[in-house]
């Protein structure tokens, strides 16, 4: 029995092609990922009665009803278009799980489609000459690039306040490539050394290029349904054991009370309070890595090690790598598989728990934790093989 009022399971996952360049039609990408997830679960369009999607609202994905038409789904008992201030792509799955648990619908398709054009926040933009709203306190100082400067300042502050070193951040980047070498879908599969990491171009010193994830064109889809129904479908169900959100007081990337961890700590506290398992039971962790700081935050917030202990715990990277005691980001994550914006961490966790990951399979993985975003947008899920 999970922490939800009705047990929910993931019954299918799917990907489109994931590409580093090119001009893609987001309908084609979305349809490919959704069709793959439905085929994986062994269901047709008539079995789907809910769709939730997450996007930036910049033409990066079709709307939920747009996807309904792409897939020929007769009617939707529940749908939602989530915009870019939630826990990234995982937000769609969190929403779906709650709707299924509430009994509003039975089988929900969720997806995140993203293009390089919309996902490339480091691009040079020409902003309006007049800075209004929240921008009036940021744009006149040359604050741009989304949360890039915020993440750089968190990196600097963390090492000053909690100790460790910038090499800790490099361990996350190196780890991503070690796993990506074992994942044919990953776009950056060449190995990386700590020296390579430090030689990377500084984007906003101390943030280096290799602290940032890699923009791609692609889509990922996940099919969720009641655990009861999932047991009649094609795959071994992966049950949603717990889910939680967190924002933290003051809820802001720059001005929130907890500058280093944002909402990750309250999110993790709620997650484990609800779960039937605990941090010591985690076999594999798929933790957002839009920036390396985020992954380190989640490792500590989730209690996989203590706050400020990552430096010693990570054991020069061995602990989180292939064959390590706690494999982290086994697909290569967004740093190396590509920035599918959150939902692919859930899909990878599901495939690990189903034992389908081939060369990168974590032996006998039974419990996974998935976390997305950071700051005022934190969200996480615990999954258990049925």
């Amino acid at each position, binding site marked *: 029995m999970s922490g939800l009022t009705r047990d929910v399971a993931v019954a299918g996952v799917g990907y489109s092609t994931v590409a580093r360049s090119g001009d893609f039609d987001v309908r084609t990408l979305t349809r490919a990922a959704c069709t793959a997830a439905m085929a994986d679960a062994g269901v047709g369009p008539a079995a789907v009665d809910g769709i939730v999607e997450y996007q930036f609202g910049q033409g990066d994905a079709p709307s939920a009803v747009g996807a309904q038409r792409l897939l020929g789904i007769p009617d939707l008992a529940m749908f939602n278009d989530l915009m870019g201030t939630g826990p990234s792509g995982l937000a769609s799955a969190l929403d779906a799980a709650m709707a299924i648990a509430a009994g509003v619908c039975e089988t929900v398709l969720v997806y995140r489609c993203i293009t390089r054009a919309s996902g490339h926040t480091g691009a040079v933009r020409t902003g309006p000459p007049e800075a209004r709203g929240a921008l009036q306190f940021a744009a006149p*100082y040359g604050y741009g690039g989304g949360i890039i400067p915020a993440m750089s300042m968190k990196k600097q502050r963390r090492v000053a306040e909690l100790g460790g070193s910038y090499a800790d951040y490099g361990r996350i980047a190196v780890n991503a490539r070690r796993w990506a070498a074992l994942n044919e879908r990953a776009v950056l599969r060449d190995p990386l050394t700590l020296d390579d990491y430090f030689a990377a171009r500084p984007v906003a010193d101390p943030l280096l290029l290799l602290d940032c994830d890699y923009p791609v064109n692609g889509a990922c889809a996940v099919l969720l349904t009641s655990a009861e129904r999932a047991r009649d479908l094609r795959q071994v169900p992966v049950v949603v054991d717990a889910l939680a959100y967190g924002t933290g007081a003051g809820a802001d990337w720059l001005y929130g009370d907890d500058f280093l961890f944002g909402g990750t700590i309250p999110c993790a506290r709620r997650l484990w309070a609800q779960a039937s398992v605990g941090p010591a039971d985690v076999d594999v962790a798929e933790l957002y890595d839009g920036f390396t700081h985020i992954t380190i935050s989640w490792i500590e917030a989730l209690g996989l090690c203590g706050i400020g202990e990552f430096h010693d715990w990570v054991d020069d990277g061995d602990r989180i790598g292939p064959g390590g005691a706690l494999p982290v980001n086994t697909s290569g994550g967004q740093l190396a598989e590509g920035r599918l914006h959150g939902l692919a961490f859930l899909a990878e966790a599901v495939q690990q728990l189903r034992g389908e990951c081939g060369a990168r399979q974590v032996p006998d993985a039974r419990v996974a934790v998935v976390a997305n975003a950071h700051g005022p947008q934190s969200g996480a899920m615990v999954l258990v093989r049925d």
Partner: protein
Amino acid sequence: MTARPRPVPDAVSAAYWAGADRGALTVAHCDACGRAHHPPEPACPRCGADGPRPRVVSGRGTVFAACVVRQAFDAAFADAVPYHLALVAPDDAPEVRILTNLLGADPAEPVAVGTPVAVEFEPATGVGARVDARVGEGDGVALPQFRVVGP
């Protein structure tokens, strides 16, 4: 050169920018819970009380966190890189962080956490590119900027 963005005061921020134009740095203070916040909001983000009021602070503080922007994200700052961006904690409102550039520091590396700084005001042209104009006589908005005053 593309013009740098100028702040446009609104109903909530007007007192902040008016203060800056007089050479006074303010934080928004909540009488109900006694805590300050920045940027100013219509209600206290910590307790929800109405009517936070601007409170003048000394303008001295320390660097809470800093970075050096090396890749321009806004075309208007393409000629400004590398430049400092930082969050400053005022000495007399340490729970507050104020986003600023840092003047008087070598952009070869970020300024260390804890470094003392003091506010000054420049016409709203950004990143220490002071023009020969007096505060209040530029585009009508003075921009608080912090200068490194010690190691």
